[in-house]
């Protein structure tokens, strides 16, 4: 039963478009699944390997721009950006990793945060390639309807889930967790910590970049402030995993559902809508205090809290 759970959920999601959902609901579903992919990718590096990145927008943006520039300059379909982004994002991950992975803990977080900002500013100013603040727009999107976009991102999510599960259950997973728990001990147990951190970062970056390339195709428009955004991409990525459950398989999915719906609900509140970051911040504080392992990680504790709530 437990082993079949991913298949059951995948099956249920796969039939959703057949229910004739409105375009708005399809959009929400696509966003949820896209954020699950980014969350799962971040979780491998931040959750399992313990390297908290505040700059995953860098990889999302590079993926998106790979697709965008390919379309804009080479006049190819932006969908080619998805396979190409694997190569391009890996190169960026190796460079960023070379610089940032020698830093530990909060310094690594700050280093990656800086990388995200540097790439945004670069994209804004390198107008010859990126069109700067004008952004890149697809003249026409591949499909008007959302069904195919839904299936493509669902397939990407399934691949991401399986790939990360395989990595986590192999030697790599053990090494990543060993590095998270104690880097010096890991090193003295014969683990090449620099190498394995670079591997974790590269895998994490590639899936984030694929989500970015998909985003370009789906939304049809990107500019540096959207895809390299610190608040709306990097921080939300961390929140998806923190809220859902760090170092759990389902955490990113649960977190993505909550974060996307929360953002949508807050947007509909008159006057307060623009302040969604404030609500995210409050939510993060509540989660860190009461459910430090996230909803999936602290499910027992959550049940307990809710039961007490009912009794009184």
């Amino acid at each position, binding site marked *: 039963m437990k082993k079949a759970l991913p298949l059951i959920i995948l099956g249920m999601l796969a039939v959703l478009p057949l229910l004739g959902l409105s375009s708005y609901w399809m959009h929400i579903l696509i966003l949820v699944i896209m954020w699950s992919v980014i969350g799962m990718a971040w979780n491998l590096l931040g959750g399992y390997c313990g390297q908290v990145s505040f700059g995953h927008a860098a990889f999302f943006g590079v993926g998106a721009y790979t697709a965008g520039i390919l379309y804009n300059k080479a006049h190819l379909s932006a969908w080619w950006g998805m396979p190409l982004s694997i190569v391009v994002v890996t190169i960026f991950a190796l460079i960023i990793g070379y610089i940032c992975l020698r830093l530990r803990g909060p310094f690594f977080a700050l280093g990656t945060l800086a990388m995200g900002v540097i790439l945004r500013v670069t994209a804004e100013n390198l107008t010859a390639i990126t069109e700067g603040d004008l952004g890149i727009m697809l003249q026409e999107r591949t499909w008007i309807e959302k069904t195919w976009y839904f299936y493509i991102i669902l397939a990407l999510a399934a691949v991401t889930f399986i790939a990360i599960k395989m990595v986590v*259950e192999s030697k790599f997973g053990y090494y990543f967790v060993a590095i998270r728990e104690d880097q*010096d001990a890991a090193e003295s*147990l*014969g*683990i*090449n910590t620099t190498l394995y951190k670079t591997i974790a970062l590269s895998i994490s970056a590639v899936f984030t970049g694929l989500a970015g390339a998909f985003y370009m195709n789906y939304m049809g428009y990107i500019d540096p402030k959207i895809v390299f955004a610190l608040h709306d991409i990097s921080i939300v990525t961390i929140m998806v995993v923190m809220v859902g459950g760090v170092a759990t398989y389902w955490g990113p999915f649960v977190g993505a559902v909550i974060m996307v719906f929360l953002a949508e609900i807050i947007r509909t509140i008159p006057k307060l809508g623009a302040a969604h970051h404030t609500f995210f911040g409050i939510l993060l504080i509540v989660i860190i205090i009461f459910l430090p392992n996230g909803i999936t990680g602290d499910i027992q504790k959550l049940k307990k809290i809710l039961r007490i709530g009912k009794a009184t």
Partner: protein
Amino acid sequence: MALLEVKGVSRFFGGLAALTDVSFDVEKGHILGLIGPNGAGKTTMFNVVNGFYAPSKGEVYFRQKKISGLKPHQICQMGIARTFQVVKPLQRMSVLDNVIASAFLRVKTRTRAEEIALETIKFTGLLDDKDVISKGLPLGKRKKLEIARALATQPEMLLLDESFAGLNPAELDESIGIIQRIKEKGITIMIIEHHMKVIMAISDRIVVLSYGEKLAEGTPKEIGNNPLVVEAYLGEAESA
């Protein structure tokens, strides 16, 4: 033929000399005790051999190959494993997973790694605790876990940094038994220890460090009769 050769090693931290021109050999199959008062440079010596610090001067050879300057993971791959004085278990992993993680050094598959890990856990007497999250282990068992984890890398030489400190008499006897069985397996051991009785009983040779310098070297009997060693431990009346 010596398995490990420490040749004229010095290590400075700024102006402070933690080790000054220390040389000694460790013979294959021996247990070498490294003793000395607090701050004598024993753990620094381990950190130099293990690769956490490069020596400021001098070299370390293992199986006639120079290892000083290599990284800790490379030195571990060559066959030197260590434990830490301040235990460093992988806290949020079970005892078994801790040992599996280090067993992966020599094998590729999860099944083989688990086999080796279980064998090692049995050897160190932790089988009943294999599913315990290591954060919750009492100190005595954490010290054993350190040894199990180091052994799972299948080393030729083991560096034990105060594996007996803080143990009760029963645990102490058990750990001495484990060390002797490790020796019987043919693994060379270098051990830092404050328990004089233990170190005198198990060591083949002893090196005494004091203020970063080698004060004496010899068999346990020679060391026990050496006036310099007694002085270093009890202190001179005038030196204050």
